[in-house]
């Protein structure tokens, strides 16, 4: 008889307790993420589509050179010797094997696979393989600040003011700056000061590179040589324009 009433009390108690547990779950925010519309942050070290920090990139070709499958294609013009007018920085995901070497080798830490902004994707699913040759450029040509700087140099040159960009970059930036533009406002010299310094860094690296490059190239070559030997057609295609690229990996696979 006692167990009878105990059972009644127990069933009520446990039901209420269970309902409390489920109610707690009810108030928790949903863990589901509506994937295509909503994206989770990628963990550090994730290897997905590349993102390129175009402003810091110095066009040193380290990534393209170390790439074992030669899937990185970059093209830029140097304007006034230190500003980069971008034409192309594409990664062919038909070939890319996500080995992370391009990220490790980058001296300016400007190419990543674990960062995602609006332009970067991480889903490789596609019907059309030609879309897998992705251009990482956010803008083509000069960046806005570079455009201004170049325009200013051109204007200065037209006005006859001697502002050789390479010289202050090579030497000490600050004193040359003060001498070159005494008439400019307070803001301009500060900006101008930053630029030549960047130029200086670039120049310094440019000086390092020849020394470093042979060893790097020697390292990279054995890896790069093999795929190049296996598929000369693909290597040739990678150099050509986008529409040409897709058939190469497909024929290679077949």
């Amino acid at each position, binding site marked *: 008889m006692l167990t009878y009433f105990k059972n*009644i009390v127990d069933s009520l108690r446990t039901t209420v307790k269970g*309902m409390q547990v*489920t*109610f707690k*779950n*009810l108030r*928790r925010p*949903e863990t*589901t993420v509506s994937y295509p519309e909503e994206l989770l942050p990628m963990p550090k070290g994730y290897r997905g589509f590349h993102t390129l920090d175009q402003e810091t990139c110095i066009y040193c070709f380290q990534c393209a050179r170390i790439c074992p499958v030669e899937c990185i294609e970059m093209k830029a013009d140097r304007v006034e010797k230190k500003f980069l007018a971008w034409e192309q920085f594409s990664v062919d995901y038909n070939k890319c094997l996500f080995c992370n070497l391009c990220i490790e080798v980058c001296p300016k830490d400007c190419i990543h696979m674990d960062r995602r902004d609006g332009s970067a994707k991480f889903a490789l699913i596609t019907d059309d393989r030609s879309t897998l040759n992705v251009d990482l450029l956010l803008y083509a040509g000069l960046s806005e600040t570079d455009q201004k700087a170049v325009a200013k140099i051109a204007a200065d040159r037209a006005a006859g003011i001697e502002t050789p960009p390479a010289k202050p970059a090579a030497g000490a930036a600050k004193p040359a700056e003060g001498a070159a533009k005494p008439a400019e406002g307070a803001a301009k010299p500060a900006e101008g000061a930053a630029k030549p310094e960047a130029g200086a860094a670039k120049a310094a690296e440019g000086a390092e590179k020849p020394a470093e490059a042979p060893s790097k190239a020697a390292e990279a070559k054995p890896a790069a040589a093999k795929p190049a030997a296996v598929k000369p057609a693909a290597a040739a295609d990678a150099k050509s324009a986008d529409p040409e690229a897709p058939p190469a990996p497909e024929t290679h696979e077949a």
Partner: protein
Amino acid sequence: MDTLVPHLQSAWQWATGSAFAFSLVLSILLVVAFVSVWAMFAVWLERKASADFQVRLGPVYVGPFGLLQSLADGLKLAFKEDLVPRESDRFLFLIAPAIAFCGAFAAFAALPFSPAFAAVDLDLGLFFVVAITAVGVIGVLMAGWSSNNKWSLYGAMREAAQLVSYEVPSALALMVPVLVTGSLNLKEIVGFQCAPIDAGSSGAIYLSANGWLALYSPWTFVAFLVYYVASLAECKRAPFDLPEAESELVSGFHTEYSGLRFSFFFLEEYAMMFVVSAVAVLVFLGGWQPLPFVSLDLGGAAGNAFFAVVFLAKCILLVWVQMWLRWTLPRLRVDQVMVMGYKYLIPVTLGALLLMALYAHWGVRYIPGIV
């Protein structure tokens, strides 16, 4: 409504010469429309509630908040092939869903949504609802038997056993408020709960003499709990969803059904959920009155609409609690269901009924000498 109905009525009278036929057709159409819309809403609510309890999102794409998901599903079901197993009892197989649905559907006729908004005002309303909802089990038995499928037959037999067992405690539990109010008319039962504390009072808001029956005395509260549990079993809801226990019986009595006929079983289930919740609301929770001990007296179309909304909101709340229980409790075993019905619910209800009868005889609500 007040102005439109007489015109339509006269037009119909002109056409048929019968006022009765008009009101009949109009009532049936209203109930059909309500049941269909309710079923769609309830399916959506079920999916959203399940998602909420499982920390998911639920339907989000079709319509705002996924509200049109059930409409899309219904359309899909309507266009599906209506399969009939070759070895089945064809005639019974075909009419079973209709009969199962009729039980729940007919009960709507007697449910008053507000003082003036009821299809039929029956003096035996409560009795009618309890009796007619039991018709559904015939349809389920027919479906299970005629499918010529072991799982279907098991499901149907379980349903029959379960429904017959749980009719007893649920009907007994409903006897307790009937004992208190002395009426089987659902409107009068609600009227008892919102009766003014002094008969002479007039005004829109007044204190009620009795309040909601669930809070009227401990015995009515016990009766409310018992009725709610038994009603879960009657409409085959978890934890009493043995007739369609997916893990054991594929899909129970409607395993062989597809397309529109399958959707009729679905309609029946959700209509039943509404009916049992509506009875619980009308009998125990003050019907259309929004507050337990304070009653409103609103007339006119607006007042009736307000009352209907309150009533619907309460029903939806109770249906939601059914879903809450579904995601809380695991399914019982067959013998556990029977033990719970016969050894626990029936004696407890009988005790509550007896005590309520004694107290009603002495004319007190709670404990003699105190209240």
